[in-house]
C-alpha cells in the first residue's frame, strides 16, 4: 500500500507538467498581451512595450519561455534564475516588481501567513466546509430518519435548493436580506479580523457543498438503515441513540468523507465570485483577473497551485478511505 501511495505522489510531477504545458499553450495562443490595457487608459507606447518585453523575456521563443518558467533560464547578466522547481512562480506582469508567490503567499507587513491571500482563501474554504458539515450532515440525517415526513421534504428542499441556485444569485439575495433589511451584518466589512464578517461569505460559498453533503448523508443513511446489522442491533435491544451513533453513523459517513476532500479544494478555488461581491482579499480572483490582463505568470502559477491542491485532496481522500473502510482494497 505504501508503494501505491508513493507511486501516486510521483505521478504528480508528470501530471503537473502536462497541466502547465496545456495552460501555457492556451494562454499564449490568446490574442493580446500583458501590455494591452483597458481602452479608457492611454496605451503603452511601442518603445516602452519593447523594453518591457525585453526585460521579461517575452520576446524569446515560446519553448524557451516555458523551460525558463519551469526550470529556469539565464537573465541578462548571466545569472541563473530558477523556475518552478525552486518555488519561483514567476514575476507578475501586472503588479510589476512582485513575484506571483510573493503576491499570493506573502502577508502584508506585520501579519502572519494566514493573512496572505492564500491564507484568507484557505480560511474561508475551511469555514465554508465546517458550515457544510455542521448543517448538511444533521439535515441529511434528520431527513433520512424521518423519511417521507415533513423533515424529509424540508431536507430535500434545502438540499436541492442549494444546488440549483448559483452562488452569485444567493450572494446578492443574502446581502439584501441580512444587510439591507435586517441590518444584521454590515455589507462592506472594513476589516476581516472579527469572525462575524466571515459568516455571510462562507455561507454563500459553502451552500452548494452543504446541499451535496445533505443529500449524500441522507441517501447513505437510508442505505445503511436497511442493513441487517442495524436490525440485529435493534433486536439486541440497544437504545435507538446508540444504534444511530455507533452503528449507522460510522458507516453512513464513508461516502460523505469521500466528497469532502475535493469539496475543500473546490471551495478554495471557487471563491472568486464571493471575493468580488464581498471585497474579500483572497486569491480566487487572481486567476480570473489574470486571464483578462494576460498576466502569464499569475495564470500559470495559480493553475499549478490549484492543480496541486486538487491532487492532494484526492489523494488524502483515498488515504482516509482506506483507513475507514476495511473492506476497501486499493487497486490501481
Amino acid at each position: 500500500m505504501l508503494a501505491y501511495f508513493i507511486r501516486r505522489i510521483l505521478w504528480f510531477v508528470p501530471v503537473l507538467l502536462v497541466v502547465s504545458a496545456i495552460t501555457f499553450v492556451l494562454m499564449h495562443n490568446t490574442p493580446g498581451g500583458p501590455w494591452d490595457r483597458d481602452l479608457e487608459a492611454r496605451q503603452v507606447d511601442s518603445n516602452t512595450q519593447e523594453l518591457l518585453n525585453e526585460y521579461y523575456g517575452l520576446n524569446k521563443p515560446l519553448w524557451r519561455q516555458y523551460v525558463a518558467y519551469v526550470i529556469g533560464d539565464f537573465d541578462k547578466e548571466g545569472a541563473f534564475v530558477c523556475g518552478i522547481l525552486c518555488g519561483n512562480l514567476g514575476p507578475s506582469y501586472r503588479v510589476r516588481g512582485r513575484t506571483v508567490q510573493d503576491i499570493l503567499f506573502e502577508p502584508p507587513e506585520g501579519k502572519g501567513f494566514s493573512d496572505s491571500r492564500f491564507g484568507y482563501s484557505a480560511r474561508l474554504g475551511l469555514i465554508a466546509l465546517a458550515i457544510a458539515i455542521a448543517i448538511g450532515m444533521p439535515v441529511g440525517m434528520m431527513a433520512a430518519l424521518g423519511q417521507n415526513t415533513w423533515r424529509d421534504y424540508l431536507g430535500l428542499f434545502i438540499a436541492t435548493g442549494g444546488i440549483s441556485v448559483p452562488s452569485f444569485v444567493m450572494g446578492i439575495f443574502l446581502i439584501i436580506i441580512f444587510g439591507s433589511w435586517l441590518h444584521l451584518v454590515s455589507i462592506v466589512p472594513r476589516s476581516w479580523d472579527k469572525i462575524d464578517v466571515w459568516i455571510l461569505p462562507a455561507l454563500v460559498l459553502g451552500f452548494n457543498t452543504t446541499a451535496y453533503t445533505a443529500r449524500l448523508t441522507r441517501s447513505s443513511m437510508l442505505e445503511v438503515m436497511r442493513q441487517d446489522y442495524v436490525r440485529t442491533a435493534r433486536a439486541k435491544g440497544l437504545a435507538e441513540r446508540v444504534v444511530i451513533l455507533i452503528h449507522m453513523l460510522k458507516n453512513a459517513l464513508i461516502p460523505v468523507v469521500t466528497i469532502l476532500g475535493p469539496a475543500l479544494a473546490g471551495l478554495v478555488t471557487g471563491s472568486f465570485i464571493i471575493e468580488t461581491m464581498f471585497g474579500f482579499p483572497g486569491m480566487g480572483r487572481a486567476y480570473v483577473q489574470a486571464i483578462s490582463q494576460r498576466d502569464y505568470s499569475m495564470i500559470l502559477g495559480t493553475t499549478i497551485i490549484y492543480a496541486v491542491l486538487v491532487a492532494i485532496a484526492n489523494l488524502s481522500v483515498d488515504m482516509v478511505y482506506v483507513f475507514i473502510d476495511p473492506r476497501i482494497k486499493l487497486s490501481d
Partner: protein
Amino acid sequence: MTETINTPSQPIVSLNRDISHPGRSLGRDAWARLIRNKASVTGMIIIGLFTLIAIFASVLVPHSPIQIHSGANFLPPAWVEEFNGKTGNPDYLLGTDTLGRDVFSRVLYGARVSMVVGLIPTVIIMVLGTIVGMIAGYFGGRLDNLLMRLTDVVYAFPDLLFFIIVMVSLRDSFIGQMMNGLLLLFMALAIVNWVGVARLVRGQVLSLKEKEFVEAARCIGAKDMHIMFRHILPNSLGPLIVFAAFAIPGAIITEAILGYLGLGLRPATDQAAVFITSWGGLLLEGQTAINAQPYMLLTPAICVALIVLAFTFLGDGLRDALDPRMRGTQ
C-alpha cells in the same frame, strides 16, 4: 401395510395450467416503478414543459426578444401598480429590461440555450466516457494504465479555471464563432467532465467482468465487442443514467456561471437566430439591475432552480426504478 391413497374429492381437470407470466424486461419494470414515484413524475412534466418551450419559443413569445422599446425600460411586471415611479404594463408580463426588451420573451428563449447546453454536452460526455471506461476496464493492462493516467491529468485540472481559459483563448477563433459560441462551450464542458463517467464505467466493468454470465458468454465464443455492449453495458446502465440526470443540471449551472463572467453565449442581432440569449446571460444582466427591476434576476433564477430540481427528482426516481434493492430507500 397397505397404503391408503387419498382420492381427491374432485377430479383434477388438467395439470397443464398456464402459470406463465408475460415476460417483462427491465425497462418495462423500471418504467412502472418510475411512474409511481410522484416526485419524478413532476420532474418529467417540468422537463417536458421546458423542452416544449425551448422548441416552440419563436411561436410562444409575445414580443421579439431583441426588440428594443425606447423609453420603456425597467418596467415592473404587469401586476405591479407602482415601482420606482414606473407602472406595470400588461403588454410585458414580467416587465422589461435595461433596453426595454420584454423579460418574459427573453426567458422563454433562454430555455433553448439552457436545455441544449444541458443535454448535448451530457450526451457527448456519456458516449466518450463510456467508451473509454469500457475499453480501460475490459482490456485492462497497459491500455488501462494509460487511459487512467490520462484521466488523472484531466482530473487534476481545476474545472472552472479550465473553462475560463479555454473560452477566453479560443473565443475569437473559428470554433468559437460557430453557433454563437455554443460549440466551444459544449467542447469545454465535455472535455472536463467525461472523466467521471469513464471512472464510473470502468468500476462497473471491473466488477461485472468476473461475473458468471460473462464467463458463460465467453465459453460460448462470444466476441469481446459483443460481450461489452450486449452484456456488460446494459447491466451498468443504472448508475450511468443517474449520473447523466445529475450532469445535466450541472452543465446548466456552469453555463450560468460562465455567463456571469461574460464568457457564455455571444449576443445575437438577427431576429431569426436560433440561440438568442441564455439564462446565464439573463442572470448576469439581472444581477446588476437588481434594484431597478428585480424580476430580471428572479425569473431566470427560478427557472434554473426549477429545471435543476426537476432533473434531480428524475435522477432520484430513475435510481430507485433501476435498482430494486433501493426500493423504499429514496
